[in-house]
């Protein structure tokens, strides 16, 4: 496959991830969408669920990882093999936490949209994805390809941050009327 073909594949899958990001936006969550592709099929998807669960670790990547595990358990297939041959598409660069989680799960390739200047774990703040100083216990490094439909991911984030985070404590935002 030529490089152009590969890029087109990444773009096509990224549009799917962007659909999920839009869903998150409508649910008043930070609009980040994610899909996991295995054998040319979407086997799991996820959107940010931090506000819904009151758990700040419920990022799109973690939700999708758990859906893959559920699928593997139901179909009785070894999840390690699935993760080791999967590609994760996410609209925003995985944060430091998610990058570390993806290493632990053994996902070899991550394709993302825009950079994550606040929390990015694939180079923006730290590069956990390619950090070789961590031991084998922390998993293996993964390849990260960024800047795939980045503008579209940024537009969604901008729309979200124009609004107000209704879950922030009162003293951190404008007083309710």
């Amino acid at each position, binding site marked *: 496959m030529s490089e152009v073909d590969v890029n087109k594949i990444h773009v096509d899958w990224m549009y799917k991830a962007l659909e999920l990001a839009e869903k998150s936006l409508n649910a008043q969550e930070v609009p980040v969408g994610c899909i996991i592709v295995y054998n040319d099929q979407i086997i799991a998807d996820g959107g940010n669920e931090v506000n819904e*669960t009151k758990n700040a*670790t419920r990022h799109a990547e973690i939700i999708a990882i758990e859906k893959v595990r559920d699928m593997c358990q139901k179909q009785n297939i070894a999840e390690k093999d699935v993760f080791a041959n999967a590609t994760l598409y996410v609209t925003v660069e995985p944060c430091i936490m998610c990058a570390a989680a993806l290493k632990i799960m053994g996902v070899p390739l991550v394709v993302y949209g825009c950079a994550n200047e606040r*929390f990015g774990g694939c180079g923006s*703040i730290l590069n956990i994805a390619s950090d070789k100083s961590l031991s084998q216990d*922390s998993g293996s490094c993964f390849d990260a390809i960024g800047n795939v439909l980045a503008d579209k991911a940024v537009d969604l984030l901008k729309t979200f941050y124009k609004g107000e985070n209704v879950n922030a404590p009162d003293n951190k935002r404008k007083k309710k009327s």
Partner: protein
Amino acid sequence: MSYRKKMKTCSLYQNDEKIDACEYQPEPVLADEYLEPVHLVDVYVAIITDKKKTSKIVKKLNEIAPLGYLQHLKRIRTTNDPAGPLQIVLYEKSFATDISNWDSQKCQIEEVISTIDGLGKKYLTKVPSTPPLTRHQYNEAIQYWPVNFHEDKMITSLLSGKYFENKELQDIEMYMKLAIQLAQVAKRKKQLPIGAVIVDPVTKTIICEAYDLQNSGYPLQHAVMVAIDLVAHSQGGGMWIYEDSHSELKYASLQEQPKSGTGVYLCTGYDLYTTQEPCVMCSMALVHSRISRVFYGSSQKDGALGSKFKIHCQPGLNHHYKVFRHCLQQHTDQLYSER
């Protein structure tokens, strides 16, 4: 669920409070900038040959060669002999060697300086390139050149070894012992022996008791991730469902908690006690969760709160938290001695 645990008084604190308090102070994990030796830079200085012209010279130099990022330097110093001549900082050496400045600025500055009355011949000396952040750095810096020092009282207190009062130390020890007990529960259940407790230090409420669940099959269920999820459960959220066989995992629902002034939001204002240094994933999860302070026992090779990274004070992140390590380390090290 009942949290009425009897606090064991530690006899160590009763005999000689001062000595034992020092011995048991958890070690603060500070950003590298507080621990680094003084960095130096070459500058040109000159002797003021005519003291009466000092103020004029200073005024002129501030005009043509402002100190810029070297604002922490005192422009003038006395030599060892108080009656001896004054020395004055002219400009940074690289200012003159920077190619882009070479033609215009260097010639200009040299020319102007040569016209200043009362200045001796210039020579190079080393001065501190950054402002001192701690008294230790200050004392080292002034060996080279006098500098201004704005002492951060919090940092001084943290480094003093007397940051915590005995009452606080007793609380820390009590919560840490609970984390160790949970690690032992985990071990009995064939899980990794890592315990975690999240506490509201204001109301002294234990919000959750957690331990590692990785060995149940999901590699992301580290003790800290479980603890964060249990806090979410305490607030009516949460994601993971825990098997009945893990009845030792506990959380205090909001109804059971003393009322706090402001509403709860993630782990804002809470402290975490854990037996082992959190990894990258867990340390960043604590950033997202807005934890206030983390106390841990044993360091670990991939640890992200002091060993491999310092995620809690990583530049660029929008939330930082305090970290104290080696709490009851002798006890927590026993949990990991077999590795």
